């Protein structure tokens, strides 16, 4: 299991492995939105929490695209399925590797982009906190979606279609907590609800994803 985690991390850090690209996407989105929307700081500050959360979500989404697909193509997934580790564990480890390589850096770099988007002062702390607590759910839900679409050519966009509605509650609570904090209101309720979703996803979705994987290998 740990070997799998190490391998996935190593693959991500190797050339072409995709580490840092989620970050790049996040950064570019934070740049594009002001370009599209216009430079008025008032407006930008208003929409900053929402845009940052949506951006983090999309960056995360894009990079989970091929979480299992690459392993499927080169036959590793067949071999992992016949290896002496439970497929549920494989899924959980893959989600963890995804979170470590994609979501964690996003959460850490988000405050910098908050400055670009003119996020009001009290929002910063809660932005990082809500991303840290919310993105594990994104990785895990994404792993489930990736498991569903693993056998398909160009499954990438179908994956987005399946996964994005599942991201809605996390997004709403996460963005709400930041918005409320930015407006000086109490951000605790939404963040607790969001953590509940994260906990539930982590507990249940590995089984659903492993089931989907087994079906797809058949």
């Amino acid at each position, binding site marked *: 299991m740990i070997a799998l985690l190490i*391998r996935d991390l190593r*693959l991500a850090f190797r050339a072409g492995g995709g580490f840092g690209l989620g970050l790049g996407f996040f950064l570019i989105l934070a740049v594009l939105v002001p370009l599209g929307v216009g430079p008025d700081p008032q407006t930008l500050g208003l929409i900053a929490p929402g845009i940052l959360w949506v951006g983090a979500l999309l960056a995360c989404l894009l990079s989970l695209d091929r979480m299992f697909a690459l392993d499927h193509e*080169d*036959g*590793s997934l*067949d*071999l992992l399925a016949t290896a002496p580790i439970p497929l549920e564990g494989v899924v959980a480890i893959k989600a963890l590797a995804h979170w470590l390589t994609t979501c964690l850096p996003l959460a850490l770099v988000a405050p910098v982009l908050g400055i670009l988007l003119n996020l009001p002062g009290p929002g910063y702390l809660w932005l990082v906190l809500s991303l840290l607590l919310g993105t594990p759910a994104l990785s895990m839900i994404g792993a489930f979606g990736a498991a569903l679409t693993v056998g398909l050519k160009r499954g990438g966009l179908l994956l987005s279609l399946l996964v994005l509605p599942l991201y809605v509650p996390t997004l709403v609570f996460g963005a709400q907590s930041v918005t409320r904090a930015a407006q000086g209101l109490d951000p605790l309720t939404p963040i607790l609800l969001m953590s509940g979703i994260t906990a539930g996803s982590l507990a249940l979705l590995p089984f659903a994803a492993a089931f989907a994987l087994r079906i797809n*290998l*058949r």
Partner: protein
Amino acid sequence: MELRVSDLAVARGGLPLIEGLSFAVSGGEALVLRGPNGSGKTTLLRTLAGLQPPLAGQISAPPEQMAYAAHADGLKSTLTVRENLRFWAAIHGQNGVDAAMAAMNLTDLADRQAQHLSAGQKRRLGLARLLVTGRWLWVLDEPTVSLDVASVALFGEVVRAHLARGGAALLATHIDLGLPEARILDLGPYKAEMPADLGFDEAFL
């Protein structure tokens, strides 16, 4: 240690391919499966390895005892030869990466990334993986594709050593494997017959 398959039927894409197949392989034996293209060798091996359910019949050994090697080698192209092997060894809780590389003549290539290997070198690496699974039954789909004569001989020795250790091997192939002592099983007689009359229920498979 024995694999006993009785009255097995397998299907692919909703189509029965092989029916009524029974055979046994015990430790120290190698069995070569032969059959024309599309006769269902790959499907059969995948079924044995537990990757798809059989249509009917029993398989005595659980998938946990088998090491399966498919048309694709399961290599990560940005990892080196050694890293690839080490990963699979760790997954199976085994050591012996260096011995495996030595056995398949990969020691010189140990630090080369898999994407920079030629077709035959990749295959050798795929076969070296078997040595670090620690499993007694090897289930191999056309293992010597792309191998040159020397490597085929090397492979033959590796299999023989595995058999000598009490292991067993089940191999599908079209070409000569350099294993004259292996029994040969032709899948021809087990080709599935189409049922003459299709009831509405059955047509659902």
